[in-house]
């Protein structure tokens, strides 16, 4: 919806993490209205994901479908520190990142439905959301495979003389893949010369598909993996939007200033099954899911907002409006035409090079 795009555009670079003239961190002056805006975004993401799961069960969405339910605070909080021209790259659990950067629910849902009006014209589906004009450099389907790309983009941003950074999202599952280690090593090396403003955001949702972190690696402190590559790191509570926002602004500013990579392990939980076809969930207990649900990032934020004096009726109205936004997106996707068959053979080869740095700046003009 245009409203989502509007709020993404309005997002300002200054915010928590900057300081006022007295040197007091701005975050101490809580911006409740901003949080209410993000509450709305997170509810839209949640309802969008639930709607996409329904559409999958109805056979309207094909392929694989990986939803972000439970992890909303991570991308919402980190992208609060996004500045125009910063690049974002992630794996296949990518709907939220696109929506937060300004892709409309309509065009994202239409992509899931495989329609001509989809974000990438029905050619990529759920796992390959690109919105280059809004700095979304793609969702990628091979675990670990996108990590070297993000490191290369960070090199390019410095080579081209900008002060932009890359937000590189990866899951806990990707950290055991060779591509991660090769890329992190390059990032550390290039960062010594200030040539790698890459912010690694490890979304530790506890499971790589059905294999828990404990079953996947002997050294389970994922942030510390970055020590091997000379990359400093920290952890953040990925269920608490405010904690993520504080961390995001602080570390993004540091990466921007130094040109060195930095890593944050966001502790979060995939409340939804791995994919839409994962309905048995033999690998975890209902009790475990129930416990994590108590810290559902949306519920957590809701309780905080009420503490901060926001009225329940207002949140109720936001939820109702968010439902309309998502219903509209589903209707739009459903009614949109399929891609014309001529599209089968387009975009195999580029006629001329697409320059992502110029695309994004042209869109801002």
């Amino acid at each position, binding site marked *: 919806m245009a409203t989502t795009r509007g709020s993404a555009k309005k997002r300002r670079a200054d915010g928590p993490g900057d300081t006022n003239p007295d040197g007091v961190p701005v975050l101490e002056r809580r911006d409740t209205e901003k949080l209410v805006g993000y509450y709305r975004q997170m509810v839209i993401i949640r309802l969008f994901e639930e709607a996409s799961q329904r559409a999958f069960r109805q056979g309207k969405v094909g392929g694989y479908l990986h939803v972000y339910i439970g992890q909303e605070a991570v991308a919402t909080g980190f992208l609060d520190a996004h500045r125009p021209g910063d690049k974002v790259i992630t794996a296949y659990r990518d709907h939220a990142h696109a929506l937060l950067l300004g892709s409309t629910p309509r065009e994202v849902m239409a992509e899931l439905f495989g329609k001509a009006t989809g974000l990438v014209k029905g050619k990529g589906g759920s796992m390959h959301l*690109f919105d280059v004009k809004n700095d979304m450099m793609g969702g990628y389907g091979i675990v670990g495979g996108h990590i070297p790309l993000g490191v*290369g983009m960070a090199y390019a941003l410095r080579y*081209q003389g900008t002060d932009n950074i890359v937000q590189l999202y990866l899951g806990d599952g990707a950290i055991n893949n060779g591509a991660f280690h090769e890329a992190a090593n*390059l990032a550390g090396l290039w960062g010594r010369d200030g040539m790698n403003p890459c912010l690694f955001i490890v979304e530790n949702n506890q499971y790589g598909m059905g294999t828990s972190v404990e079953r996947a690696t002997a050294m389970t402190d994922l942030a510390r993996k970055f020590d091997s590559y000379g990359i400093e790191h920290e952890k953040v509570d990925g269920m608490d939007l405010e904690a993520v926002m504080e961390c995001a602004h602080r570390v993004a500013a540091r990466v921007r200033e130094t040109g060195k990579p930095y890593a944050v392990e966001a502790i979060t939980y995939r409340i939804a099954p791995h994919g839409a076809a994962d309905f048995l969930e033999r690998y975890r207990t209902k009790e475990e899911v129930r416990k994590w649900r108590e810290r559902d990032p949306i519920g957590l934020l809701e309780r905080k907002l009420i503490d901060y004096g926001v009225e329940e009726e207002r949140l109720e109205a936001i939820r109702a409006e968010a439902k309309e936004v998502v219903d509209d997106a589903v209707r739009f996707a459903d009614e949109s035409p399929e891609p014309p068959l001529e599209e089968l053979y387009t975009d195999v080869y580029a006629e001329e*090079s697409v320059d992502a740095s110029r695309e994004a700046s042209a869109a801002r003009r």
Partner: protein
Amino acid sequence: MPVTTYREALRSAMAEEMERDESVVLIGEDIGVYGGTHLVTDGLLERFGPKRVIDTPISEGGFTGAAIGMAMMGMRPIVEMMTWNFSFQAADQIIQNAAKIHYFSGGQASVPLVIRGPNGGGVQLSAQHTHSLEGFYGHFPGLKVVSPVTPHDAKGMMIAAIRDPNPVIFLEAGALYGTKGEVPEGEYTVPFGQARIAREGTDVTLIAYGRQVNLLLRVAERLANEEKIEAEVIDLRSIRPFDEKTIVESVKKTNRAVVVQEQWRWFSVASEVAAILQEQAFDYLDAPVERVSGAEVPAPYARNLEQAAFPSEQQVIEAVRRVTYRARGA
């Protein structure tokens, strides 16, 4: 016209493009301080500095992927694979990312990338260091695959590759870095998808690419001198895109074809050429298309075994005799 080596032709193409376009950078193992394992990039670090001539650790997947990310941002990286044998380490990046990003981004992103390095065998490097990967990389839509054999084409195709907005697999004839040929000074491009008639002839069409073209030229001289057979030799130069027209036109004239390649025969370029000829020149063929390929074994080490594993002049001559129905002694 000045005469330079294949190696120098490649180097001057890259250096001239780097002078012309700041977005062109080199990245790979030991290309800078060391000067390049095959000295192709020798001297370029001193000329362009470490931000543009980037020495990497031994991690093909990592630096190839990073180069793809740079390319998506509007840079034009040239990746050196020390040899193409190491590209399997980067195959996920090349095939799953470079070849497909333009498509699955709906045309929003592109990957103007060159990956270059020596391909093929012939110097006793044995199984893990001997591959001819034209068929392998030629299989994937989204990649362009070229294999120049002359210093002239090496330079002109390298400039074309750097300026191409797509990922280009640039397979150099590793055994030929020191060979010399006429190379114009300054910029020129040899467009992809255009085969070259390396020798004109009327009796049989011999088709190859890479260093097998030189073998065919030697065979053609022998056939002319010893058997009064005038062979036309076609250098494909480009595997994808592929110039079907030139081979079909030639066979319409000669009615016979022998395709020669160092790579294994199964699912190979020669198989594709044979299929194209039977589809498009069926009525003109006076004999089945012959394929002369590498032996279906991992490359052996011993000199005599290695030589036996690759196409020889004798094998090609025998194939020509079969398609011209001149069995020995007939």
